[in-house]
């Protein structure tokens, strides 16, 4: 299967250059707050591009993604947490975990694999479902994962904060994982599996008639997607170093879904653009909220502006540009066309 064509190479190169530019902009700005935002952005790109792998190619909206992220965050944290912290944070921890403290990056990778295995087990029966049934069952899956995380105090510290993770995720590490994710997403999309899954997204009956096994194609995609969500969770956990089940629920789910809807779920370019634009918008709104709060223009407490604006933006997009900013064409297709013309 030839998967590296011109268009793909151009897309991947474009994002490599973009990521490097972002990196250097951060370097010259030299502010800790800015660096924090940029690192978060790269983690969100892994998350949204990972979601694109399943949702974009299969056409099925999935709410479970942030649930997978939490599995990656907690499982990698459990492995990497220093031994003396463990006695402190997790009083009822099972003895086998008491004396392990792996390297954080290794823990993040194992967390991703663990998430993929859990996804493989949980999602196979769901892969037959279409449309509303598929969406609702993915939502149910998010609730199941959330409930388990809240309830399983021995390894998660329950609804309380899970803290004491080593701060291992740097901007550079987030950038590298992010770029590898982008390469994977492009290769997958143009592989045999990606092409057949996209065919089934457009017309399931016709896809079966050319030999596509839709259940397995979707299953493979959601396993890969969950792996990436798990990695993103692990990276985020080792960046923020303390979190609770609340960090992985409806608000965050809505955020990634809005990123992919605004950018366009059919394309990797769209997923990245969505993550970028929503992050910029989010930071701008947060700043506005703060300015309003301290300026005494409005005397009552002004919270939730960000959520309102994000919700309205999504509604506007769903009405006017339901397939997002990049509905079908990747950035590389456009570059290829421009180059050919000259």
């Amino acid at each position, binding site marked *: 299967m030839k998967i590296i064509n011109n268009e793909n190479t151009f897309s991947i190169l474009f994002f490599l250059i973009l990521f490097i530019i972002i990196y250097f902009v951060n370097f010259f700005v030299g502010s800790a707050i800015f660096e924090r935002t940029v690192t978060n952005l790269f983690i969100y790109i892994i998350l949204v591009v990972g979601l694109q792998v399943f949702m974009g190619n299969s056409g099925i909206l999935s709410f479970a993604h942030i649930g997978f992220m939490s599995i990656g965050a907690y499982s990698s944290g459990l492995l990497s947490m220093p031994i003396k912290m463990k006695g402190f944070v997790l009083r009822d921890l099972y003895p086998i975990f008491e004396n392990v403290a792996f390297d954080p990056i290794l823990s993040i990778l194992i967390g991703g694999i663990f998430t993929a295995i859990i996804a493989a087990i949980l999602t196979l029966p769901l892969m037959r479902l279409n449309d509303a049934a598929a969406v609702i069952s993915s939502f149910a899956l998010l609730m199941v994962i959330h409930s388990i995380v809240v309830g399983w105090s021995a390894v998660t510290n329950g609804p309380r904060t899970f803290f004491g993770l080593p701060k291992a995720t740097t901007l550079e590490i987030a950038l590298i994982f992010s770029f590898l994710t982008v390469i994977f997403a492009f290769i997958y999309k143009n592989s045999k599996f990606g092409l*057949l899954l996209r065919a089934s997204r*457009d017309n399931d009956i*016709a896809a079966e008639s*050319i*030999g596509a096994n839709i259940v397995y194609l979707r299953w493979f995609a959601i396993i890969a997607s969950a792996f990436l969500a798990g990695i993103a969770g692990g990276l985020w956990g080792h960046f923020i170093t303390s979190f609770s089940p609340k960090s992985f629920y409806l608000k965050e789910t809505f955020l990634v879904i809005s990123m992919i809807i605004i950018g366009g779920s059919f394309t990797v370019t769209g997923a990245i653009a969505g993550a970028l634009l929503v992050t910029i918008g989010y930071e701008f709104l947060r700043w506005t909220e703060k300015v309003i709060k301290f300026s005494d223009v409005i005397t009552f407490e002004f919270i939730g502006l960000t959520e309102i604006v994000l919700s309205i933006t999504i509604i506007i997009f769903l009405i006017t540009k339901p397939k997002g900013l990049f509905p079908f064409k990747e950035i590389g297709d456009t570059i290829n066309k421009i180059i050919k013309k000259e």
Partner: protein
Amino acid sequence: MKLSCEKITVDFVGLRALDQVSLSVKTKEILGLIGPNGSGKTTLLNTIGGQLKPTKGNIFKDNLDITEFTPQHRVKNGLARSFQIVRTFDSLNVFENIKSASLVSNMNYSDKIKFCDEIISYLNLDRIKHVLANTLNYGDRRRVEIARAMATDPDFLLLDEPAAGMNDDESEILLTMLREIPNKFNLGILIIDHDMSLIMKLCDRLHVLDSGKTIAEGLVDQVKTHPDVVKAYLGEGFKNENA
């Protein structure tokens, strides 16, 4: 090679859509399946393609009973089809539509691509090779569907009204293309169409259905003058004029 249906019966709620229909097609042969609207032609094609399970009866590819096979499994056994209601992959371009179908075949990758290109130029799709399917006109979409079915490298091609929605020139061109396919690609064709002049010119044999029952079968000239066929078609023409 031979594809055969034996005594296929299909019951829908309150309706027997097919009643003990048997037919067979051989390699390099073109069999026309005709009959008035609602006579069960598409239903028969769906049972052969695996989109629908027959209530009774069996389908054989040579001596292999494929009645219980899934559609995916049937493609691997050499059956490919197009649909009466077009089902192109609309967000993929023409080449990707066809390439996706070639993935099941046993060829190696570069042969697959060569084969796709051969089909594309045979069906005159070169000009629109990189165009998204959702921007194509009806006639082009129908040819993309035929090309897609052919890309699976089938032994039998099942076509459900491939000329529907085409103008006279387009269907004339399609006719010439279809005529040569069995020999050029070494396969058999089972084709449904309501355009009688196209069917008469194209097919070696005809099989006529009316209300789910076989009313005639045989060589084109024999069937054309068969009293039941004349009656069924006059009846339909009469109905259409009053509609």
